[in-house]
């Protein structure tokens, strides 16, 4: 048991870190925007936090809020620029942003260490990571139950109609971006602490695919879906490596395919729950 824990604790760690990225993506998706900008927020939070840790020798408890804040600030700026774009144009613009991020990370040697990367001489016990994730979960839970949650859902489903009901689309989406930025920046530094090493490749397309896949796999209509999806998406390849080492990748692809085919709205689907509840209700 202890061995099992030792062997898979890092998998759990990465799953939790990916959950932050997935939640960050969920935050914007739940207000009707598909954005990959989380990668950029993570890069800023990660590199900035790492530099603070290296040069000012700040402890993680101080570094993490700074990372989250910097991510949120950047997200605010990104929101100002991006909110004029709709749906897939925003997706592309954010993808372009990710690619630019990598070029900047490669060339801004002072902040990122360039191609050689940056060692991060800090580490984080797993339980701290779990505790932070739990706090973030509470935040998402409360948000979804608050007025903001209701408004965001309306904006997501039909922004024009929501606006005629007095729901300020821009403001809701800006808030969504800021939440996304904070959680993404936090995820960025947490990834740095997990890897203890950063390079421009750390924050790149892979994360974008991981987070979007996690959100959709887990169910994009509930915040818990992001977490479930991140865990499945992270752990699946590792488990498959143990089971079918030679066909791990192919098996992984097939598993994803099967999950989506049989649960096209993801593992957690509030709509199905509602339907079931309505069916049980003796209203008719």
């Amino acid at each position, binding site marked *: 048991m202890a061995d099992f824990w030792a062997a898979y604790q890092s998998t759990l760690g990465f799953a939790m870190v990916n959950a932050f990225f997935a939640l960050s993506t969920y935050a914007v998706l739940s207000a009707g925007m598909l954005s990959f900008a989380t990668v950029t927020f993570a890069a800023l939070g990660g590199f900035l936090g790492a530099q603070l840790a290296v040069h000012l020798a700040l402890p993680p408890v101080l570094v993490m809020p700074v990372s989250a804040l910097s991510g949120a600030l950047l997200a605010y700026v990104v929101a100002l620029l991006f909110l004029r774009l709709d749906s*897939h144009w925003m997706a592309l613009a954010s993808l372009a*942003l990710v*690619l630019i991020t990598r070029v900047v990370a490669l060339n801004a040697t002072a902040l990122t260490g360039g191609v050689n990367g940056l060692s991060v001489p800090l580490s984080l016990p797993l339980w701290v990571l779990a505790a932070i994730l739990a706090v973030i979960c509470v935040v998402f839970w409360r948000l979804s139950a608050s007025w903001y949650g209701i408004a965001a859902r309306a904006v997501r489903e039909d922004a024009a109609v929501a606006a005629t009901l007095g729901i300020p689309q821009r403001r809701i989406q800006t808030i969504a971006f800021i939440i996304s930025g904070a959680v993404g920046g936090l995820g960025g530094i947490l990834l740095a602490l997990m890897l203890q090493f950063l390079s421009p490749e750390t924050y790149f397309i892979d994360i974008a695919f991981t987070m979007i896949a996690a959100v959709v*796999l887990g169910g994009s209509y509930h915040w818990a879906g992001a977490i479930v999806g991140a865990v499945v998406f992270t752990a699946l390849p590792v488990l498959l490596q143990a089971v079918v080492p030679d066909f791990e990748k*192919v098996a992984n692809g097939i*598993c994803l395919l099967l999950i989506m085919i049989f649960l*096209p709205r*993801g593992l957690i689907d509030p709509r199905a729950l509602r339907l079931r509840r309505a069916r049980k209700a003796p209203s008719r």
Partner: protein
Amino acid sequence: MSLFVEQLINGCALGSLYALFAIGFGLVFATLGILNAAHGTYASWAAIAALAAVQRLGLPFPLAVLVGVAAGGALGVAVDQIAFQPLRRRGAGMLGALITSIAAWIVLDNLAGVATGQDSLSFPTDSYPGGMLHVGGIAFSTMQLITIIAMLAATLGMHLLVRHSRFGAAMRAVGWKEQAAAIVGVDPRRVVLATAFLAGAASGLAGVLGGISTANVSYSLGEGLMLKGFAAVVVGGYDDVRGAALAGVALGILEVMSAQYVSTSLRDGITYALLLGFLLLRPRGLFGGTSFVRA
């Protein structure tokens, strides 16, 4: 001056590959509503198939290209039926298809890696028109010419099909809402299959031509085209074949020129920053992308 012109031709030829890729990618997005992450693997597999046709069967160049194009199309159909059709039948949205396409991408990419022995292969130099052409002090290769011509032909053909034929109208109708097309007698399944085939074939053409001219037949072939093709689609307007093609070519030229005259390490940065700037100024792409949904 001749250097500039040669680089312009290099950019056009490179951009033609992006354009060919973007045409199919955009077609699937516009008509079937799927952001297909597996689209790049069609290119890789088409090149692998064409190479096999050359090496195993000794087919001449035109036939090998045909084999590659057919392989791309067939793969497009197969992926559609395995990864997208089940979701379509359940009326699930586009995001789900994004994930199944990622799954298909993982599987196909890995199998491509296995098929090439994780190596980057190339076409034997005598299996394609590999010569250089010299026109007034300007040198360019026969393959570049072929690539540009292929791109122009594919763009024109696809544009006429989608915009000016009844089948094209059916494609757009099915893309909008399958049931709306079916109630006037359009067989959505057939239209979907044809669309998937055409898109795969265009990607396959890009794959074969690109595989030959970059001497790189491997799973990374398609991945290289993927991001640029996607960018071309959005800049050009995903529902306009001409726009996507134009944007693809422009992207190729921009890339080559910024490497030649500015800096290679900033090349992608410049390309994507311009792209981003363009999007912010013209949020609906090159040709405006008229809305057909009322306020």
